Protein backbone atom coordinates (compact mmCIF):
# COMPACT_ATOMS: atom_id res chain seq x y z
CA UNK A 1 0.00 0.00 0.00
CA UNK A 2 1.41 3.40 -0.98
CA UNK A 3 0.44 6.35 1.19
CA UNK A 4 1.20 10.03 0.92
CA UNK A 5 0.98 12.64 3.68
CA UNK A 6 0.58 16.27 2.72
CA UNK A 7 1.31 18.56 5.68
CA UNK A 8 -0.46 21.89 5.14
CA UNK A 9 0.29 23.25 8.61
CA UNK A 10 2.65 25.88 7.21
CA UNK A 11 3.30 27.69 10.51
CA UNK A 12 3.81 24.54 12.59
CA UNK A 13 4.93 21.67 10.32
CA UNK A 14 5.42 18.63 12.57
CA UNK A 15 5.23 15.80 10.02
CA UNK A 16 8.96 15.75 9.11
CA UNK A 17 10.02 15.22 12.73
CA UNK A 18 7.25 12.74 13.53
CA UNK A 19 8.27 10.52 10.65
CA UNK A 20 11.99 10.87 11.29
CA UNK A 21 12.99 12.42 8.04
CA UNK A 22 14.66 15.47 9.59
CA UNK A 23 16.65 17.68 7.25
CA UNK A 24 15.72 16.71 3.72
CA UNK A 25 15.82 18.66 0.49
CA UNK A 26 13.02 18.59 -1.98
CA UNK A 27 14.17 17.95 -5.53
CA UNK A 28 12.52 18.68 -8.83
CA UNK A 29 11.95 16.15 -11.57
CA UNK A 30 10.16 16.48 -14.93
CA UNK A 31 6.85 15.71 -13.29
CA UNK A 32 7.29 18.26 -10.52
CA UNK A 33 8.54 18.23 -6.94
CA UNK A 34 9.67 14.86 -5.68
CA UNK A 35 8.13 14.02 -2.29
CA UNK A 36 10.36 12.84 0.55
CA UNK A 37 10.15 9.10 1.11
CA UNK A 38 10.51 7.57 4.56
CA UNK A 39 11.80 4.24 3.23
CA UNK A 40 13.49 2.64 0.25
CA UNK A 41 10.28 0.89 -0.79
CA UNK A 42 8.65 4.33 -1.20
CA UNK A 43 5.59 3.16 0.68
CA UNK A 44 5.22 6.49 2.51
CA UNK A 45 5.66 9.80 0.68
CA UNK A 46 5.67 13.15 2.46
CA UNK A 47 5.46 16.80 1.54
CA UNK A 48 5.76 19.59 4.08
CA UNK A 49 7.02 23.15 4.19
CA UNK A 50 9.37 21.76 6.82
CA UNK A 51 11.48 20.38 3.95
CA UNK A 52 11.69 23.77 2.26
CA UNK A 53 13.08 25.71 5.23
CA UNK A 54 16.79 26.45 5.36
CA UNK A 55 16.71 26.25 9.13
CA UNK A 56 14.07 24.10 10.87
CA UNK A 57 13.53 26.86 13.44
CA UNK A 58 12.72 29.48 10.76
CA UNK A 59 9.28 31.00 11.30
CA UNK A 60 6.90 31.09 8.36
CA UNK A 61 5.24 34.43 8.92
CA UNK A 62 2.83 34.47 6.01
CA UNK A 63 -0.61 35.95 5.54
CA UNK A 64 -3.41 33.96 3.96
CA UNK A 65 -2.84 34.58 0.23
CA UNK A 66 0.74 33.32 0.36
CA UNK A 67 -0.29 30.22 2.30
CA UNK A 68 -3.06 29.58 -0.21
CA UNK A 69 -0.61 29.81 -3.11
CA UNK A 70 1.86 27.31 -1.63
CA UNK A 71 -0.87 24.82 -0.81
CA UNK A 72 -2.06 25.05 -4.40
CA UNK A 73 1.46 24.15 -5.49
CA UNK A 74 1.66 21.28 -3.02
CA UNK A 75 -1.46 19.78 -4.53
CA UNK A 76 -0.71 20.33 -8.21
CA UNK A 77 3.10 20.32 -8.45
CA UNK A 78 4.16 17.39 -6.29
CA UNK A 79 4.88 14.20 -8.25
CA UNK A 80 3.11 11.85 -5.85
CA UNK A 81 3.07 8.97 -8.32
CA UNK A 82 0.67 6.09 -7.74
CA UNK A 83 -0.84 6.32 -4.27
CA UNK A 84 -3.53 4.27 -2.56
CA UNK A 85 -4.16 7.02 -0.03
CA UNK A 86 -3.26 10.69 0.34
CA UNK A 87 -3.74 12.06 3.84
CA UNK A 88 -3.80 15.81 4.32
CA UNK A 89 -2.83 17.00 7.81
CA UNK A 90 -4.22 20.47 8.56
CA UNK A 91 -3.71 23.07 11.29
CA UNK A 92 -6.64 23.90 13.59
CA UNK A 93 -9.31 26.23 12.19
CA UNK A 94 -11.56 26.90 9.24
CA UNK A 95 -9.52 29.39 7.27
CA UNK A 96 -7.14 29.85 4.38
CA UNK A 97 -5.42 26.46 4.61
CA UNK A 98 -8.66 24.52 4.83
CA UNK A 99 -10.30 26.42 1.98
CA UNK A 100 -7.16 26.05 -0.14
CA UNK A 101 -7.07 22.29 0.36
CA UNK A 102 -10.75 21.81 -0.40
CA UNK A 103 -10.67 24.05 -3.46
CA UNK A 104 -7.53 22.52 -4.92
CA UNK A 105 -8.67 18.96 -4.34
CA UNK A 106 -12.18 19.56 -5.65
CA UNK A 107 -11.36 18.33 -9.13
CA UNK A 108 -10.02 15.09 -7.63
CA UNK A 109 -12.24 12.80 -5.63
CA UNK A 110 -12.04 13.54 -1.90
CA UNK A 111 -13.26 10.61 0.18
CA UNK A 112 -13.85 12.72 3.23
CA UNK A 113 -12.56 14.16 6.45
CA UNK A 114 -11.59 12.67 9.80
CA UNK A 115 -12.17 15.05 12.70
CA UNK A 116 -10.02 14.78 15.80
CA UNK A 117 -11.04 16.11 19.20
CA UNK A 118 -10.07 15.68 22.82
CA UNK A 119 -12.93 14.68 25.13
CA UNK A 120 -13.29 18.19 26.60
CA UNK A 121 -16.23 20.45 25.82
CA UNK A 122 -13.93 23.32 24.80
CA UNK A 123 -12.46 21.04 22.14
CA UNK A 124 -15.72 19.55 20.88
CA UNK A 125 -17.06 23.12 20.87
CA UNK A 126 -14.58 23.97 18.13
CA UNK A 127 -15.05 20.70 16.29
CA UNK A 128 -18.78 21.47 15.96
CA UNK A 129 -17.74 24.44 13.85
CA UNK A 130 -15.38 22.22 11.85
CA UNK A 131 -18.35 19.93 11.15
CA UNK A 132 -20.21 22.93 9.78
CA UNK A 133 -17.20 23.72 7.58
CA UNK A 134 -17.35 20.19 6.19
CA UNK A 135 -21.06 20.45 5.50
CA UNK A 136 -20.71 23.85 3.81
CA UNK A 137 -17.84 22.72 1.61
CA UNK A 138 -19.42 19.39 0.71
CA UNK A 139 -16.83 17.31 2.57
CA UNK A 140 -18.12 13.96 3.75
CA UNK A 141 -17.32 13.24 7.40
CA UNK A 142 -15.67 9.84 7.66
CA UNK A 143 -15.87 10.03 11.42
CA UNK A 144 -14.76 11.54 14.70
CA UNK A 145 -11.76 10.40 16.79
CA UNK A 146 -11.60 11.11 20.52
CA UNK A 147 -7.89 11.59 21.24
CA UNK A 148 -6.15 11.91 24.63
CA UNK A 149 -9.03 9.90 26.05
CA UNK A 150 -7.98 8.81 29.50
CA UNK A 151 -4.64 7.89 31.01
CA UNK A 152 -3.85 4.56 32.64
CA UNK A 153 -1.21 4.99 35.32
CA UNK A 154 1.68 2.64 34.54
CA UNK A 155 2.33 2.20 38.27
CA UNK A 156 -1.10 1.30 39.61
CA UNK A 157 -3.32 1.02 36.49
CA UNK A 158 -5.76 3.67 37.77
CA UNK A 159 -7.43 5.41 34.84
CA UNK A 160 -7.55 9.21 35.07
CA UNK A 161 -9.67 11.23 32.65
CA UNK A 162 -7.26 14.14 32.44
CA UNK A 163 -9.09 15.84 29.59
CA UNK A 164 -12.51 14.51 30.56
CA UNK A 165 -14.17 11.59 28.74
CA UNK A 166 -16.86 10.86 26.21
CA UNK A 167 -17.07 14.27 24.52
CA UNK A 168 -16.06 12.91 21.13
CA UNK A 169 -18.60 10.14 21.20
CA UNK A 170 -21.29 12.58 22.31
CA UNK A 171 -20.38 14.95 19.50
CA UNK A 172 -20.61 12.15 16.96
CA UNK A 173 -24.09 11.30 18.21
CA UNK A 174 -25.17 14.95 18.26
CA UNK A 175 -23.99 15.58 14.71
CA UNK A 176 -25.00 12.25 13.21
CA UNK A 177 -21.40 11.43 12.32
CA UNK A 178 -19.72 8.03 12.74
CA UNK A 179 -17.72 7.65 15.94
CA UNK A 180 -14.43 6.01 15.03
CA UNK A 181 -13.04 5.40 18.51
CA UNK A 182 -10.96 6.66 21.43
CA UNK A 183 -7.16 6.82 21.71
CA UNK A 184 -5.72 7.02 25.23
CA UNK A 185 -2.92 9.31 26.42
CA UNK A 186 0.22 7.23 26.17
CA UNK A 187 3.75 8.45 27.02
CA UNK A 188 5.16 5.79 24.71
CA UNK A 189 3.20 7.20 21.78
CA UNK A 190 4.31 10.73 22.70
CA UNK A 191 7.94 9.63 22.84
CA UNK A 192 7.72 7.69 19.58
CA UNK A 193 6.32 10.61 17.60
CA UNK A 194 8.84 12.95 19.21
CA UNK A 195 11.72 10.77 18.13
CA UNK A 196 10.26 9.83 14.77
CA UNK A 197 10.11 6.17 15.74
CA UNK A 198 7.54 3.77 14.42
CA UNK A 199 5.24 3.33 17.43
CA UNK A 200 3.38 0.48 15.79
CA UNK A 201 6.56 -1.52 15.29
CA UNK A 202 7.79 -0.78 18.82
CA UNK A 203 4.57 -1.36 20.76
CA UNK A 204 2.32 -3.70 18.75
CA UNK A 205 0.72 -5.20 21.89
CA UNK A 206 -0.31 -1.89 23.40
CA UNK A 207 -3.90 -0.80 23.99
CA UNK A 208 -3.01 2.36 22.08
CA UNK A 209 -2.04 0.43 18.95
CA UNK A 210 -5.19 -1.61 19.21
CA UNK A 211 -7.24 1.61 19.38
CA UNK A 212 -5.45 3.14 16.37
CA UNK A 213 -5.79 -0.05 14.37
CA UNK A 214 -9.50 -0.26 15.11
CA UNK A 215 -9.95 3.33 13.93
CA UNK A 216 -7.99 2.69 10.72
CA UNK A 217 -10.20 -0.30 9.96
CA UNK A 218 -13.33 1.79 10.57
CA UNK A 219 -12.06 4.50 8.21
CA UNK A 220 -11.33 1.97 5.47
CA UNK A 221 -14.77 0.45 5.92
CA UNK A 222 -16.43 3.88 5.68
CA UNK A 223 -14.53 4.72 2.51
CA UNK A 224 -15.43 1.38 0.95
CA UNK A 225 -19.10 1.80 1.90
CA UNK A 226 -19.42 5.11 0.01
Amino acid at each position, binding site marked *: VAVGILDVDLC*GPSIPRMLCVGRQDVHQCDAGWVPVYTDAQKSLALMSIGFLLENPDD*AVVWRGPKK*TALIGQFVSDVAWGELDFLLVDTP*PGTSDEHLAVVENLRKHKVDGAILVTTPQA*VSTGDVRREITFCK*KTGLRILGIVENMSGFVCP*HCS*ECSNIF*SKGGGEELAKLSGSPFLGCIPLD*PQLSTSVEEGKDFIQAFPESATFSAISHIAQAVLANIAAA
Partner: protein
Amino acid sequence: MADVPSDAPEHCPGTSSVEAGKTSACQGCPNQRICASGAARTPDPAIEEIKQKMASVKHKILVLSGKGGVGKSTFSAQLVYGLASDTSTEVALLDVDICGPSIPKMMGLEGEQVHQSGSGWSPVYVEDNLAVMSIGFLLSSPDDAVIWRGPKKNGMIKQFLRDVDWGELDYLIVDTPPGTSDEHLSVVQYLSGAGVDGAIIITTPQELSLQDVRKEIGFCRKVKLPIIGVVENMSGFVCPKCKNTSQIFPPTTGGAEKMCSDMQLPLLGQVPLDPRIGKSCDEGRSFLSLEAESPAAAAFSSIIQKIRQYCKDGVEDGSPD
Protein backbone atom coordinates in the same frame (compact mmCIF):
# COMPACT_ATOMS: atom_id res chain seq x y z
CA MET B 1 -10.98 51.66 2.27
CA ALA B 2 -11.99 48.53 4.14
CA ASP B 3 -9.48 45.67 4.22
CA VAL B 4 -11.84 43.60 2.12
CA PRO B 5 -14.37 45.91 0.45
CA SER B 6 -17.89 44.56 0.10
CA ASP B 7 -17.55 44.52 -3.71
CA ALA B 8 -14.20 42.67 -3.65
CA PRO B 9 -13.82 39.24 -5.27
CA GLU B 10 -13.44 35.95 -3.39
CA HIS B 11 -9.63 35.85 -3.19
CA CYS B 12 -9.10 39.53 -2.46
CA PRO B 13 -5.59 39.79 -0.96
CA GLY B 14 -6.67 42.76 1.20
CA THR B 15 -6.35 46.43 0.30
CA SER B 16 -3.30 46.92 2.48
CA SER B 17 -1.41 43.95 1.04
CA VAL B 18 1.66 44.60 -1.13
CA GLU B 19 -0.18 42.59 -3.79
CA ALA B 20 -3.28 44.77 -3.68
CA GLY B 21 -4.61 45.26 -7.17
CA LYS B 22 -2.00 42.99 -8.67
CA THR B 23 -3.15 39.42 -8.12
CA SER B 24 -5.14 37.43 -10.67
CA ALA B 25 -8.11 37.63 -8.30
CA CYS B 26 -8.03 41.43 -8.66
CA GLN B 27 -8.94 41.32 -12.38
CA GLY B 28 -12.29 42.93 -12.83
CA CYS B 29 -12.60 44.26 -9.28
CA PRO B 30 -13.96 47.84 -9.25
CA ASN B 31 -11.22 48.84 -6.79
CA GLN B 32 -8.35 47.36 -8.79
CA ARG B 33 -6.94 50.62 -10.13
CA ILE B 34 -6.94 52.31 -6.72
CA CYS B 35 -5.29 49.32 -5.08
CA ALA B 36 -2.67 48.87 -7.81
CA SER B 37 -1.69 52.54 -7.53
CA GLY B 38 -0.79 51.98 -3.89
CA ALA B 39 -3.24 54.65 -2.74
CA ALA B 40 -5.11 52.13 -0.58
CA ARG B 41 -1.91 51.20 1.18
CA THR B 42 -1.27 54.38 3.11
CA PRO B 43 -0.66 53.74 6.81
CA ASP B 44 -3.90 52.49 8.22
CA PRO B 45 -5.55 55.33 10.15
CA ALA B 46 -6.87 52.66 12.50
CA ILE B 47 -3.40 52.37 14.04
CA GLU B 48 -3.63 55.95 15.36
CA GLU B 49 -7.28 55.47 16.35
CA ILE B 50 -6.34 52.34 18.29
CA LYS B 51 -3.45 54.19 19.93
CA GLN B 52 -5.96 56.76 21.20
CA LYS B 53 -8.33 54.04 22.38
CA MET B 54 -5.52 52.19 24.17
CA ALA B 55 -4.41 55.31 26.05
CA SER B 56 -6.66 54.13 28.91
CA VAL B 57 -5.09 50.65 28.97
CA LYS B 58 -1.96 50.43 31.12
CA HIS B 59 -0.59 47.03 30.08
CA LYS B 60 -1.16 44.95 26.95
CA ILE B 61 0.03 41.36 26.84
CA LEU B 62 -0.22 38.78 24.05
CA VAL B 63 -0.49 35.05 24.77
CA LEU B 64 1.08 33.05 21.95
CA SER B 65 2.01 29.48 21.15
CA GLY B 66 3.56 27.84 18.14
CA LYS B 67 1.50 24.70 18.39
CA GLY B 68 -2.21 24.13 18.91
CA GLY B 69 -3.61 22.30 21.90
CA VAL B 70 -0.89 23.29 24.38
CA GLY B 71 -3.24 25.13 26.75
CA LYS B 72 -2.89 28.72 25.59
CA SER B 73 -6.54 29.71 26.06
CA THR B 74 -6.66 27.77 29.32
CA PHE B 75 -3.68 29.79 30.53
CA SER B 76 -5.17 33.10 29.31
CA ALA B 77 -8.36 32.37 31.25
CA GLN B 78 -6.46 31.58 34.48
CA LEU B 79 -4.28 34.66 33.96
CA VAL B 80 -7.25 37.02 33.84
CA TYR B 81 -9.03 35.27 36.71
CA GLY B 82 -5.83 35.64 38.71
CA LEU B 83 -5.22 39.29 37.83
CA ALA B 84 -8.87 40.17 38.50
CA SER B 85 -8.88 38.46 41.91
CA ASP B 86 -7.68 41.83 43.15
CA THR B 87 -10.97 43.69 42.72
CA SER B 88 -9.19 47.03 42.35
CA THR B 89 -7.49 45.78 39.18
CA GLU B 90 -9.40 46.26 35.92
CA VAL B 91 -8.77 43.39 33.51
CA ALA B 92 -9.99 42.43 30.04
CA LEU B 93 -9.48 39.40 27.82
CA LEU B 94 -9.64 39.76 24.04
CA ASP B 95 -10.02 36.50 22.12
CA VAL B 96 -8.69 36.83 18.57
CA ASP B 97 -9.01 33.14 17.73
CA ILE B 98 -11.57 33.91 15.06
CA CYS B 99 -12.11 30.31 13.89
CA GLY B 100 -11.99 28.60 17.26
CA PRO B 101 -13.25 31.02 19.94
CA SER B 102 -13.19 29.01 23.16
CA ILE B 103 -12.85 31.89 25.58
CA PRO B 104 -16.62 32.52 26.09
CA LYS B 105 -17.10 28.94 27.27
CA MET B 106 -14.02 29.03 29.53
CA MET B 107 -15.22 32.23 31.16
CA GLY B 108 -18.78 30.95 31.72
CA LEU B 109 -20.18 33.38 29.14
CA GLU B 110 -21.58 31.03 26.48
CA GLY B 111 -24.67 32.44 24.86
CA GLU B 112 -23.94 36.04 25.82
CA GLN B 113 -24.29 38.71 23.20
CA VAL B 114 -22.43 41.94 22.56
CA HIS B 115 -24.27 45.27 22.80
CA GLN B 116 -23.61 48.46 20.89
CA SER B 117 -23.68 51.83 22.55
CA GLY B 118 -22.70 55.37 21.59
CA SER B 119 -19.14 54.70 22.71
CA GLY B 120 -18.78 51.45 20.77
CA TRP B 121 -19.24 47.73 21.46
CA SER B 122 -19.61 46.79 25.09
CA PRO B 123 -17.55 43.80 26.16
CA VAL B 124 -19.22 41.11 28.24
CA TYR B 125 -18.46 41.24 31.96
CA VAL B 126 -17.66 38.18 34.09
CA GLU B 127 -17.19 40.38 37.15
CA ASP B 128 -17.30 44.18 37.51
CA ASN B 129 -13.56 44.26 36.91
CA LEU B 130 -13.24 41.46 34.32
CA ALA B 131 -14.42 42.02 30.73
CA VAL B 132 -14.25 39.69 27.73
CA MET B 133 -14.60 40.13 23.96
CA SER B 134 -14.71 37.31 21.43
CA ILE B 135 -16.24 36.61 18.04
CA GLY B 136 -18.04 33.85 19.93
CA PHE B 137 -20.44 36.53 21.20
CA LEU B 138 -21.32 37.52 17.65
CA LEU B 139 -22.30 34.02 16.53
CA SER B 140 -25.89 32.93 16.98
CA SER B 141 -25.27 29.18 17.25
CA PRO B 142 -22.55 26.94 18.68
CA ASP B 143 -22.47 25.24 15.27
CA ASP B 144 -21.76 28.44 13.32
CA ALA B 145 -18.41 28.24 11.54
CA VAL B 146 -16.34 31.33 10.77
CA ILE B 147 -14.96 30.35 7.39
CA TRP B 148 -12.95 33.45 6.67
CA ARG B 149 -9.73 34.06 4.83
CA GLY B 150 -6.98 36.22 6.29
CA PRO B 151 -8.10 39.68 5.17
CA LYS B 152 -11.56 39.33 6.69
CA LYS B 153 -10.09 38.05 9.97
CA ASN B 154 -7.79 41.07 10.00
CA GLY B 155 -10.77 43.40 9.63
CA MET B 156 -12.49 41.82 12.62
CA ILE B 157 -9.37 42.16 14.77
CA LYS B 158 -9.11 45.84 13.82
CA GLN B 159 -12.71 46.34 14.94
CA PHE B 160 -12.10 44.55 18.22
CA LEU B 161 -9.18 46.83 19.02
CA ARG B 162 -10.72 50.05 17.73
CA ASP B 163 -14.44 49.77 18.39
CA VAL B 164 -14.74 48.01 21.75
CA ASP B 165 -15.36 50.33 24.67
CA TRP B 166 -12.79 48.86 27.04
CA GLY B 167 -12.76 51.79 29.43
CA GLU B 168 -9.92 52.17 31.93
CA LEU B 169 -7.93 48.96 32.14
CA ASP B 170 -4.87 47.86 34.06
CA TYR B 171 -4.42 44.79 31.83
CA LEU B 172 -5.61 43.82 28.35
CA ILE B 173 -4.72 40.20 27.65
CA VAL B 174 -4.97 39.07 24.02
CA ASP B 175 -5.44 35.34 23.46
CA THR B 176 -4.38 34.21 19.97
CA PRO B 177 -4.79 31.07 17.84
CA PRO B 178 -1.64 28.96 17.31
CA GLY B 179 0.78 30.03 14.58
CA THR B 180 2.50 33.02 13.04
CA SER B 181 0.00 34.29 10.52
CA ASP B 182 -2.68 36.91 9.87
CA GLU B 183 -4.05 37.16 13.39
CA HIS B 184 -0.60 37.59 14.93
CA LEU B 185 0.65 40.06 12.34
CA SER B 186 -2.55 42.08 12.57
CA VAL B 187 -2.59 42.31 16.35
CA VAL B 188 1.03 43.48 16.35
CA GLN B 189 0.43 45.87 13.45
CA TYR B 190 -2.72 47.45 14.89
CA LEU B 191 -1.14 47.81 18.33
CA SER B 192 2.09 49.24 16.89
CA GLY B 193 1.02 52.77 17.79
CA ALA B 194 -0.20 51.85 21.24
CA GLY B 195 2.66 49.49 22.13
CA VAL B 196 2.60 46.03 23.68
CA ASP B 197 4.33 45.21 26.99
CA GLY B 198 5.25 41.76 25.77
CA ALA B 199 4.27 38.23 24.87
CA ILE B 200 3.93 35.06 26.90
CA ILE B 201 4.62 31.88 24.98
CA ILE B 202 2.95 28.63 25.99
CA THR B 203 4.37 25.18 25.32
CA THR B 204 4.21 21.59 26.49
CA PRO B 205 7.47 19.74 27.33
CA GLN B 206 7.47 18.01 23.92
CA GLU B 207 10.06 18.81 21.26
CA LEU B 208 7.19 18.90 18.75
CA SER B 209 5.81 21.87 20.66
CA LEU B 210 9.19 23.49 21.34
CA GLN B 211 10.00 23.25 17.64
CA ASP B 212 7.07 25.53 16.96
CA VAL B 213 7.82 27.74 19.97
CA ARG B 214 11.23 28.53 18.50
CA LYS B 215 9.40 29.76 15.40
CA GLU B 216 7.11 31.83 17.58
CA ILE B 217 10.18 33.32 19.28
CA GLY B 218 11.54 34.07 15.80
CA PHE B 219 8.27 35.84 14.99
CA CYS B 220 8.47 37.94 18.17
CA ARG B 221 12.04 38.96 17.40
CA LYS B 222 11.14 39.77 13.80
CA VAL B 223 8.31 42.11 14.83
CA LYS B 224 10.26 43.42 17.85
CA LEU B 225 7.77 42.11 20.38
CA PRO B 226 9.41 41.68 23.81
CA ILE B 227 9.04 38.20 25.30
CA ILE B 228 7.96 38.19 28.93
CA GLY B 229 8.72 34.48 29.19
CA VAL B 230 7.69 30.91 28.49
CA VAL B 231 5.13 28.77 30.36
CA GLU B 232 5.41 24.99 30.20
CA ASN B 233 1.98 23.39 30.48
CA MET B 234 1.15 19.69 30.91
CA SER B 235 4.39 19.30 32.84
CA GLY B 236 3.96 15.91 34.48
CA PHE B 237 0.97 14.14 36.00
CA VAL B 238 0.64 12.93 39.58
CA CYS B 239 -1.63 9.92 39.80
CA PRO B 240 -4.35 10.72 42.35
CA LYS B 241 -4.32 7.09 43.56
CA CYS B 242 -0.66 6.07 43.94
CA LYS B 243 0.87 9.59 43.80
CA ASN B 244 3.55 8.53 41.32
CA THR B 245 4.46 11.09 38.65
CA SER B 246 4.23 10.23 34.96
CA GLN B 247 5.61 12.33 32.13
CA ILE B 248 2.77 11.92 29.67
CA PHE B 249 4.43 14.39 27.29
CA PRO B 250 8.07 13.52 27.94
CA PRO B 251 10.61 16.33 27.58
CA THR B 252 12.72 14.29 25.16
CA THR B 253 14.96 17.28 24.38
CA GLY B 254 15.01 18.85 27.84
CA GLY B 255 11.65 20.57 27.78
CA ALA B 256 11.08 24.29 28.12
CA GLU B 257 13.80 24.53 30.76
CA LYS B 258 16.56 23.63 28.31
CA MET B 259 15.08 25.68 25.50
CA CYS B 260 14.82 28.77 27.70
CA SER B 261 18.37 28.28 28.87
CA ASP B 262 19.61 27.89 25.27
CA MET B 263 17.68 30.92 24.06
CA GLN B 264 18.22 33.03 27.19
CA LEU B 265 14.56 33.53 27.91
CA PRO B 266 12.80 33.40 31.30
CA LEU B 267 10.94 30.20 32.11
CA LEU B 268 7.99 31.66 34.01
CA GLY B 269 6.88 28.32 35.39
CA GLN B 270 5.75 24.76 34.81
CA VAL B 271 2.12 23.73 35.32
CA PRO B 272 1.34 20.04 35.94
CA LEU B 273 -1.55 18.21 34.31
CA ASP B 274 -4.62 18.20 36.53
CA PRO B 275 -8.02 16.91 35.39
CA ARG B 276 -9.67 19.66 37.38
CA ILE B 277 -8.21 22.34 35.08
CA GLY B 278 -10.02 21.02 32.03
CA LYS B 279 -13.15 20.44 34.07
CA SER B 280 -13.20 24.05 35.31
CA CYS B 281 -12.71 25.34 31.77
CA ASP B 282 -15.53 23.19 30.48
CA GLU B 283 -17.75 24.52 33.27
CA GLY B 284 -16.67 28.13 32.71
CA ARG B 285 -15.31 28.55 36.22
CA SER B 286 -12.02 29.74 37.68
CA PHE B 287 -9.72 26.80 38.44
CA LEU B 288 -7.61 29.14 40.56
CA SER B 289 -10.57 29.88 42.85
CA LEU B 290 -12.00 26.36 42.93
CA GLU B 291 -8.76 24.48 43.58
CA ALA B 292 -6.58 27.12 45.21
CA GLU B 293 -4.67 24.51 47.25
CA SER B 294 -3.64 22.42 44.26
CA PRO B 295 -0.05 22.31 42.92
CA ALA B 296 -1.31 23.50 39.52
CA ALA B 297 -3.00 26.54 41.08
CA ALA B 298 0.21 27.32 42.96
CA ALA B 299 2.14 27.12 39.68
CA PHE B 300 -0.34 29.42 37.90
CA SER B 301 -0.26 31.91 40.78
CA SER B 302 3.52 32.06 40.81
CA ILE B 303 3.58 32.68 37.05
CA ILE B 304 0.92 35.40 37.32
CA GLN B 305 2.93 37.13 40.04
CA LYS B 306 6.00 37.19 37.77
CA ILE B 307 3.91 38.76 35.01
CA ARG B 308 2.62 41.43 37.41
CA GLN B 309 6.20 42.16 38.42
CA TYR B 310 7.36 42.39 34.79
CA CYS B 311 4.67 44.96 34.07
CA LYS B 312 5.47 46.91 37.23
CA ASP B 313 9.22 46.90 36.42
CA GLY B 314 8.45 48.10 32.89
CA VAL B 315 6.57 51.09 34.25
CA GLU B 316 9.29 51.92 36.78
CA ASP B 317 11.97 51.58 34.08
CA GLY B 318 10.17 54.20 32.12
CA SER B 319 10.00 51.67 29.26
CA PRO B 320 7.31 52.66 26.77
CA ASP B 321 4.04 50.73 27.19
